[in-house]
């Protein structure tokens, strides 16, 4: 187990390194942040000062070396735009994104799995066909368009739910959250549904395919030959076999929900990391982009690790390689 964890940590560090090189080179090639940051009316002297202050006068590998040594000490640099530590900026926005992402994922699981199981068990029913049609729509309609439609319908026309912001938050273990107040929950519903829709569709399709495949297995026939009730066959034999592979997908989707909450956050002015990174890219705010991506990479690695461990716990056939008894 220790060997396994060490190997995974090493992989993560390697990924971080490669990613940071790519981002450095990428941002360097796209353009000069100074052109974006400094107003046209600045004097050449002011310009020189700022360039020096950001270290942009150094050759790119020197800049990278500075970044590397600093980041090993835990300092990812200051944002060019906000002139605050990039890491702190991102961490202050993270709870909002995480809350949204978790809500979306919980929705995807608790809506997607039951619908998928039903559609898999009774593929010919009208209800199953409706579920599948819904999932095709969820897959193919663009998230921002659905977001706008939700705002139009529920906020503008019906006036039931607010269209932007997080609403009232309370501190939970020192982190501000919305879902514990009525106002916060009202603000959370639409963005969470918007972000969840694609995932719900995905979970429905995967669950349905898994159930249909599982029902054809010989062990299901044997289970029926034992005289088990339909309920036992579905809830124990079919569900367990279907859900195990789903764990991987859902786990990995958590990463992508976090990373790609950008669109939903933009539509609903949700004050999360996504909005921050969009602005950072627009300003070529390299420290902020780097810090954001490093956090995302770390998060993906961590989620992957947790998923792998979880998988080995629930599926008796899987043992983590490199691990010992």
């Amino acid at each position: 187990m220790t060997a396994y964890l060490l190997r995974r940590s090493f992989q993560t560090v390697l990924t971080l390194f490669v990613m940071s090189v790519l981002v450095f080179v990428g941002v360097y090639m796209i353009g000069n942040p100074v052109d974006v940051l400094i107003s046209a009316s600045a004097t050449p002297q002011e310009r020189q000062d700022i360039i020096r202050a950001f270290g942009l006068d150094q050759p790119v590998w020197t800049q990278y070396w500075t970044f590397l040594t600093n980041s090993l000490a835990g300092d990812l640099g200051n944002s060019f735009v906000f002139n605050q530590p990039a890491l702190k900026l991102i961490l202050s926005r993270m709870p909002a994104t995480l809350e949204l992402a978790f809500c979306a994922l919980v929705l995807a699981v608790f809506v997607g799995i039951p619908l998928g199981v039903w559609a898999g068990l009774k593929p010919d029913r009208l209800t199953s066909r409706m579920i599948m049609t819904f999932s095709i729509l969820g897959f193919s309609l663009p998230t921002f368009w659905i977001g706008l439609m939700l705002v139009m319908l529920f906020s503008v026309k019906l006036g039931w739910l607010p269209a932007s912001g997080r609403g009232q938050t309370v501190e939970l273990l020192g982190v501000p959250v919305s879902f514990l107040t009525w106002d916060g929950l009202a603000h959370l519903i639409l963005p969470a549904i918007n972000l969840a829709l694609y995932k719900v569709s995905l979970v429905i399709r995967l669950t349905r395919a898994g159930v249909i495949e599982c029902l054809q297995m010989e062990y299901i026939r044997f289970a029926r030959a034992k005289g088990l009730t339909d309920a036992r066959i579905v809830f124990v034999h079919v569900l367990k076999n279907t859900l195990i592979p789903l764990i991987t997908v859902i786990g990995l989707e958590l990463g992508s929900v976090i990373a790609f909450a950008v669109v939903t956050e933009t539509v609903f002015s949700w004050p999360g990391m996504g909005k921050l990174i969009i602005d950072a890219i627009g300003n070529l705010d390299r420290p902020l982009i780097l810090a954001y991506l490093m956090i995302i990479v770390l998060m993906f690695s961590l989620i992957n690790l947790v998923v792998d461990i979880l998988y080995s716990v629930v599926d008796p056939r899987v043992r983590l390689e490199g691990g010992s008894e």
Partner: protein
Amino acid sequence: MTNPALSVIGLETCFRIRGRMVPAVSDVDLFVDKGEIIGLVGESGSGKSVTGLSIMGLIDKPGEITKGKILLNGEDLVSAGKERLRQIRGARIAMIFQDPMMTLNPVLRIDTQMMEALSAHDSRIDAETARTRCRDALGQVGIPSPEERLKAYPHQFSGGMRQRVAIAIALLNRPDIIIADEPTTALDVTIQGQILSEMQKLCRDTGAGLVWITHDLTVVAGLTTRVYVMYGGRIVELGAVDDILDRPIHPYTRGLIRSVPWHNRPGEPLYQIPGMTPAIDRMPAGCRFHPRCALATPECRGDIPLSAFGPGRFARCVHPLVEDS
């Protein structure tokens, strides 16, 4: 004469093929006395499994039993309700399938899969009693250290051991009839032999009747009392096992016997019946074997009933290989 434990009368089971209901087996009559072992023999595709599954009530829609009766201790299973069938399945009739690698659920422990077979038919059974019975059943089929093996998962067993577990599960509720659908075909020859003789002993001990389905005549020779030979979804010949092996009546039976390696002189190529079993929607009229038969004449295209060739000896052929006695 006492009533047989199981009798099948005029069974016809159809499947939907291109929108039409096509019989896969028809006119099947057979019976099994208490404690008797019968063989159901035929090439692949001759309808053996469909017969077995029909008896179990495991034919899935759009397949259906369209004619006939299946009497278990006098009770008709074709007209029985769904819940009644479930109560009978696994308790009064059990079934074992061909591929031991696939019959056990890979993600459930052996004890779970055994104990549920007990609690499905006796909801008041306590865990302690159930466990003891499962352990004894594993011991009975020759699994070493059954107490520990109860906690294992299927992938921790070899193919032969998995089939023993399946047999133990089938025996748990002391059924009157066991249907064994080619349970040793996927195993190597030495293990085949062991399982065969153990099954014989277990049926003698428990008084269960056994329907042994196989395509391999060598298997039935030492095991069964009577044999039913199947082709194209019909019984084409039946009788005492030695009688059938020594003096086959139907040219198809003779072909089956000749294609067994033991009849082969060294150096001579193994005999094969020319042609293949037709698909169920391409069945020829009259004797279904006549297109492949060397003795076929135009008469073979007419309706051919099962006619007697001595006590307990029947065949469906107009060119019998032995004279009517």
